[in-house]
């Protein structure tokens, strides 16, 4: 697992079925409550006379500049060699500073007095040669794991946005002339 990896999410292929949400919870052993993966629906909304209904799988972005990592008082949040951001369960004190700091709202506490949970990019599964559970089970086959060397090729001629290891791509919105963007893309610009 020496190569840095990216999870490419093709928004054109997301059905909004939420299989990924359950796959993720199962892999991380979570019950009712936190959803490290959550599909957010946008619309239906009317643009240029047509109705659009879209789905955005939201999860830890494994940011290049990770706000959670910066605020952790005990340095329990670290970056793996593959580029993913991980939480060291043993040293985490459960203070929740990372949850407050995350500009994407994708970290949650697992129950009262619990510890923070978020996407691990299925670190363990990948070591075992399997795909992240969300990507394997995705009914639209919208998610692809791509090594850094292959990223440019898989994004060619597509419209994309990323701030870390998660890459959102679309052909539909490129055709409609709307750029994928997040106005405060740099998480450091968001007050904690």
């Amino acid at each position, binding site marked *: 697992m020496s190569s840095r990896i990216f999870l*490419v999410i*093709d928004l*054109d*292929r997301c*059905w*909004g*079925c*939420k*299989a990924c*949400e*359950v796959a993720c919870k*199962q892999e991380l052993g979570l*019950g*009712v409550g936190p959803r490290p993966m959550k599909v957010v*629906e*946008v*619309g*239906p*909304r009317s643009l240029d006379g047509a*109705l659009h*209904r879209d*789905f*955005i799988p*939201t999860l830890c972005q494994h940011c290049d500049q990770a706000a959670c990592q910066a605020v952790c008082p005990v340095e329990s949040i670290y970056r793996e060699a593959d580029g993913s951001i991980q939480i060291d369960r043993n040293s985490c004190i459960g203070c929740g500073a990372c*949850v407050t700091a995350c*500009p*994407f*709202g*994708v970290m949650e506490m697992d129950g009262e007095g619990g510890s923070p949970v978020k996407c691990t990019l299925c670190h363990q*599964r990948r070591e*075992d*040669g*399997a*795909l992240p*559970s969300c*990507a*394997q*089970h995705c*009914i*639209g*086959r*919208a998610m*692809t794991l791509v090594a850094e060397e292959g990223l440019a090729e*898989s994004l*060619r*001629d597509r*419209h994309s*946005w990323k701030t870390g290891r998660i890459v*959102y791509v*679309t052909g*539909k919105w*490129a*055709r*409609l*002339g*709307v750029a*994928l*963007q*997040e106005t405060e893309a740099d998480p450091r610009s968001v*007050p904690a």
Partner: protein
Amino acid sequence: MSMSGAGHSDQVLTPEDRRNRFALRLLGEQVDPAYRRRLPGGERNRAPVTPAAPKAGRPSAKPGVKIVRSACYSCNSCCEVLVFIDEASGAILKVEGDPESPVTRGILCAKGLASRDLVHNPGRLRHPIVRAGERGKGAWQRISWDDAMNRIAEKLLFYREQYGAEGVAFLQGTIRGWSRVYSRLANAFGAVNHGAAGWGQCLWPRLVENAVTFGATYTEVADFENTHCMLVWGTNPPSTWPCFASQIMDARERGAGLIVVDPTLSETAAKADIWLQPRPGTDTALALALMHVIIRDGLYDRGFVENWTVGFDRLKEHVGGYSSEWGEKITRVPAALIEKAARRYAGAGPAAIYRCVSLDQVHDSLQACRAVSLLAAVTGNIGVPGGNVTVSRRGEITQNSHTFIGYDLLPGDKIPLRRGIDRFPLLCDRLSPVPTAHMPTLWETIATGKPYPVKAALIFGSNALISYSNANRVKEAMDKLEFIAVCDLFMTPTARMADIVLPASSWLERDNLISSFQVCPTTTIAQQKAVELPEARSDVDIVCDLARKLGLADHFWNDSEALYDFLLEPTGLTFREFKEKKRLFAPLVYRQFEKNGFNTPSGKVELYSSLLEKNGCAPLPVYTMPVESAAGAPEGAAGYPYILTTGWRPPAYRHTENRENPILREQFPRPGLLIHPDTASTLGISEGDPVVVETAAGNATLYAVLTLGIHPDTVQATPGWRGRANINRVIPWTQFAEGIGSVPMRGIFCRLRRGSAADGAPGDEGES
């Protein structure tokens, strides 16, 4: 439907707010226009044509973990799965898709992924129980299996002795095993009043339609892999048929067109190139208008029509008056869009129609099914790669349906007693794959005792109180039954009414042989017992055992394994050997008709159906007005100004199932009613408010979900909820489909109002 505005100060935003704001901004919603870059030459940004298919390795087992390869039965898709078991405790750790499956390539839906709860849920029935107090009060006494079976057999024999076998109803639901053994038990017992909530409402209209039009035994396959255009009619596969959803997505990325017919902007409609949004219940009119354009413009396949169909001239004359303008008037789909869709479908090269239950649930179900499938016939999209392939074999283990269910065991003089057989021969008589009673007629007989008493019911895998239309009337009927035995997984409202309740095993706890003709008619797979609940038993084993107690052992197998051995005989394998092999896969055969013709009276595709004519039904698809239409019943239109359709099926649920599962319930916590914001505003209804839906049959209360993706005069309900939220309470028995008796559930006049405290809570949790 989704969250709307999101604030701008992070100080006050919850993580969820931030999550929603992120998603909105990513797609340019509520973003300062200065940030919205317009890309020059958008066309150049077209997506690449290579599908982004991830390569999945198969997860390996850790020490102390056992992996059992099985097949999910959360629905009829039968996706292959891996069940991870902790060897020390025997507990299921997780259920995952099997990346080695040629059909799924590893995907699995929310229901399948969450299915370990079936075994661990505290609400699971774990042993046989007998009623120990007043009916429905919840007092039970535990009994042994042997005692339970003896008591049931004794009662069934008693009622047969007293009232004849027609006085005992054999009801079933989505048992999903070799459920036809249950039909065999009914026939061997002599019970003509055998049936299911689903049959006349789901699948049977399509099966009968395939039989009379194409001479096929099963439903047609949509060959997505090779198609240039998909016409998805009233179905939303990402919610209900995940394998098809993934195939549609692959075909779409390959460049195949996608036309979707749906009254709401479903997940599938949202991905469509052309979305046709008809008024619920007008499918036949839409299909006839499409046919008009195809024939008028000469877009049909002359060679196929000439060589392989009968009745084209009559069809041509018949649709002459059904112009796209006429279609617009009836369906309110713009005529220009009808023309465009017809040209796209007929002009694309091989095109595949994919349809499902919605066409079985309109007032003219059989005619609607025919009107749609004749589109495939006249365009020559039958039996060809990329089209619709008709199917009469079920993998390697084909059985003649009537032989297997022991139809000839039924005494001939009893058959005329079957309720509904006089009016609905296509459901109740020989043309039906499993001849069944017409359920509304049977419920009325149970309620009134006319024309003869029906006093006892054996109910397998059916939450009858919730799953039948006109639920209030069904409850009245059930109250009249003197004896009820129920076999199920959970203590459903129906099981609560029973005298004896048997605990069925879930798919994780039993061996099974599967050939799901609906998803893949060419594959046969083994479902393998992953865990054991000591007293839960498979339906097949229970049926075989009960048959012995009823003195019918001669017609049955010793147990389920003996049945599977019998079914596998043509393959030369025993079930035990087959389990090692796990699957048999036969490729789809194209153009079989060139060798064998079509198994219809004429040997060709019957555009004009001689079998329908013989059975007193319209031989060409005719558009008839639903009773529930402004023209059909003006008074109704005045008193009930909105149109209800009941087809909103969230991916977390199947029919009445899965509400007990906390993970799935979290995804879709409340019974929802889709309603247009303008309508909601007129009625003083806000997002999340309780809404009372009323018809002459009754009322139901669901929670408003506002969406622009529905017509302002239409609302769409999620079916399958309990208590006041059960939308079946408002479905009347005022009209049945010609010949086959389907109850219209799509396109019902209703009134709407905001619910108040006086209406009480929807109470979806338990009470019926």
